[in-house]
């Protein structure tokens, strides 16, 4: 009888553990797209005018980027912890990008990104400078957003670019990530390209590791 009461007492205390002592949840919970879309709509409106009215689209986008960055640095650890087969820190650039394209996108947005591409480009001084691109045909985050003519070039997906940038920075692959529409002329197309410009030392390190 005493053991039985002790068991009941133990179960009772599980709920009273503070949040830092509870085990991490499996991560199966989903958020309704409608609820998130209303929140995102508010975020877009908020970043336009706070702390000061944004005079340029770039300022507005950088505010969205900053908010996404805060998400990225936190969510990476959680996703890595929950994924199988990630026992050690990923050090290969391409493998990490594939991880973002497939696993991270699936966890955050419910579907994988559509493509990961490398666009070889040359810097002004003639040195090769690879640019990596993640393509998403209709980012879930901005599904209900439709830019009016006066803000046609605004990428609300700068928020997602911020998430990617936060993750890359946390994983020691610092880069600049920007999001823009793939076909800016075709207003019906909702394809977004996330262009990732790694810092020079990251690319050099990658070259060294390849050889």
């Amino acid at each position, binding site marked *: 009888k005493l053991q039985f009461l002790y068991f009941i007492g133990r179960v009772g205390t599980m709920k009273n553990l503070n949040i830092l002592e509870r085990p991490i949840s499996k991560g199966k919970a989903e958020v309704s797209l409608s609820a998130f879309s209303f929140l995102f709509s508010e975020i877009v409106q908020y970043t336009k005018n706070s702390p000061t009215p944004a005079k340029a689209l770039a300022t507005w986008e950088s505010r969205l980027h900053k908010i996404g960055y805060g998400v990225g640095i936190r969510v990476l650890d959680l996703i890595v912890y929950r994924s199988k087969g990630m026992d050690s820190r990923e050090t290969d650039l391409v493998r990490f990008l594939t991880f973002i394209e497939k696993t991270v996108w699936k966890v955050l947005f419910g579907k994988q990104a559509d493509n990961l591409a490398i666009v070889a480009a040359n810097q002004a001084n003639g040195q090769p400078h690879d640019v990596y691109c993640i393509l998403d045909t209709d980012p879930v985050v901005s599904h209900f957003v*439709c830019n009016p003519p006066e803000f046609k070039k605004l990428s609300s997906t700068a928020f997602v670019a911020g998430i990617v940038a936060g993750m890359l920075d946390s994983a020691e692959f610092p880069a600049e990530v920007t999001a823009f529409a793939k076909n800016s002329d075709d207003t019906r197309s909702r394809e977004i390209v996330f262009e990732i410009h790694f810092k020079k030392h990251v690319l050099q390190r990658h070259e060294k590791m390849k050889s």
Partner: protein
Amino acid sequence: MAHNKANIFSLWIINKSGGLVYNKDFVGKAQLEVNALLKISGMFHGMHAISKEFAPQIPGECGGIEVIEADGFKFFCFESATGIKFLCSTESSFHNATAFLEAVYVRYTDYVLKNPFYEVDQFGIGQPIRVERFDLILESLIKEWNP
């Protein structure tokens, strides 16, 4: 979905203060000019409210005008729980446009209300809906109803 081969001629959306926020014509008929449309919407809003009071049931439980039958066409009204009215004019043989208007309501909540660039109310005045995506979505919706 078995619906009559009838045509839906036009769609109007009136906000809860009685202002017209959206109108679209699907058959290329010449529309009245904007001021006339606004006046008519205001009048309909008033009549709709009055019709609720005239109902023989307990006042407050009536849903107001649902159909107006006229010579050559019918006019349907669907009022959402939030007071937004969706109206459409259709061919005379059309039985019930509720399904169509409810579908428009769903797309309104999705592509207009969740759009950060649409302001429902600015300085107390209801704003017209100028969302390109909403127009495109309605165009594909109307194709299901106007074969």
